[in-house]
């Protein structure tokens, strides 16, 4: 059944939500204590959402590196410049593809599970129980997941990049028989650590924060029903993917 929503609420609704989401962020940040139990909780979540995403990130990274080299060599061959492949792969990977693809994969792998988990906690009264025990659920549930994402997405991005370079090596040197010395020297001279690599990792930290903020907020505010949790999970993937791409453009155009 489609609910009829007045026109004005179609505009005020999302604005209101965005404001609520920001308040949620500030309440989370206000809860940072660096206490032993909090650090332990963050480490635990880093394992659960970061380390558990390793396999998918590594496999995807490897194949992205392969296909990137394949396309690059095809295109560069026409100008007789196929020995530039490592430069092309490296630049596009470190600056854009690594951070963005890792973030999108992370939204699908970890963002959804965060939303579903918190939504189910809401549906089974666990969040209400915490409030009644005078425990702040935002600090206890949302903050560790948020912090763990901000820590793990840059690390996952770095790993994605490394696997993609490995994939590129396998394809360019192993399959296409390019010279490995040229491959490495182009990579070394053409890629700048700070500008290309660190710039991308910075972006990915922002992506990690964006995805996890949306994931915890949608989970926390999900309707406590099966359908409500389902909708919240879908919304998390859709909105965080879109925002990652929008923020990517904004940050790239301002920072470089």
């Amino acid at each position: 059944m489609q609910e009829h929503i007045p026109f004005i609420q179609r505009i005020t609704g999302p604005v209101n939500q965005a404001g609520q989401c920001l308040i949620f962020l500030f309440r989370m940040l206000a809860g940072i204590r660096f206490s032993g139990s909090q650090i332990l909780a963050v480490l635990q979540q880093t394992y659960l959402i970061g380390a558990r995403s390793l396999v998918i990130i590594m496999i995807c990274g490897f194949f992205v590196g392969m296909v990137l080299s394949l396309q690059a060599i095809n295109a560069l061959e026409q100008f007789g410049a196929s020995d530039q492949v490592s430069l092309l792969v490296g630049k596009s990977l470190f600056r854009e593809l690594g951070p963005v693809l890792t973030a999108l994969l992370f939204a699908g792998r970890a963002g959804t599970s965060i939303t579903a988990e918190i939504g189910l906690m809401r549906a089974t009264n666990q969040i209400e129980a915490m409030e009644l025990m005078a425990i702040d659920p935002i600090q206890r549930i949302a903050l560790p997941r948020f912090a763990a994402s901000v820590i793990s997405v840059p690390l996952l991005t770095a790993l994605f990049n490394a696997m993609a370079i490995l994939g590129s090596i396998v394809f360019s040197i192993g399959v296409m028989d390019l010279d490995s010395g040229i491959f490495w020297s182009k990579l070394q001279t053409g890629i700048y650590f700070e500008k290309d690599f660190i710039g991308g990792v910075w972006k990915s930290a922002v992506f990690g924060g964006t995805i996890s903020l949306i994931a915890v907020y949608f989970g926390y505010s999900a309707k406590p029903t099966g359908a409500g949790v389902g909708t919240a999970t879908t919304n998390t993937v859709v909105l965080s993917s879109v925002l990652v791409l929008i923020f990517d453009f904004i940050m790239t155009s301002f920072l470089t």
Partner: protein
Amino acid sequence: MEDSITNRLDSSEPAIRIRDLVFKRGRKTILDGINMDIPRGSIVAFMGPSGAGKTTILRLISGQLRPNEGTVEVNGQLISSMSDRELRLFRRTFGVLLQDGALFTDLTVFENIATPLREHTSLPETLIRRLVMSKLSAVGLGGIEERMPHELSGGMARRVAFARAVVLDPDIMLYDEPMTGLDPIAVSTIRTLMRDTNDALGLTSLVVTHNVNQMSLLVDYCYIIASSKIAGEGPPAELSISTDPGVDQFMNGKVEGPIPFHYEPPGEPWGLLD
């Protein structure tokens, strides 16, 4: 420290006093003009049809909701005008058992029960361990502390939740449908636990339920809430022979009576002949 507060409390004063309580959700009046005095040491039930506002009363007492009019006093303190911070401190005097127990699914049984202790006290680990184990064996479940909540049966989970609710030695216990979905043996176990704990520790217990038979065996006093008012009150034995049509309808589960079968949405009257 907790004990000194308890000792200062006058035992003749009611534990909870509610005056002229009005609560509205949007334009719909959920509760209208409720007055209650709940004596210390008693077990009191709120009964009534689903959606009558029983759980709402519980939430007004725990301070999760604030009344539109009227006052709620717990242990002589005005809940309805406390700030969030005061409320957070005050909630430590409550033990709460929610529907389905609401155990934290990502923690072991031990950590579940230890959570309130870790959050609100700075007791050493050995003492926390001893307290948790004693509460766990008090509910008859010694030896399951390393299990996860999903490995427990419904009755066991409810007992663990009970142990968690009493681990900080509360003054007041709030139960929201504590027996729903349990088998008859588990129901009796929970009922016995509720009564024994209440009498041994001198608590005041409030129970929201619609299980008429079980409540008659457990509670001292009973409020029936229907159509946003108190439809009847009294000890369960008196209520079951009440001649009041609303009370009679609820206690004996009749379809016909003053509590309507049709839900009446607010606003436009709904009718088949329109």
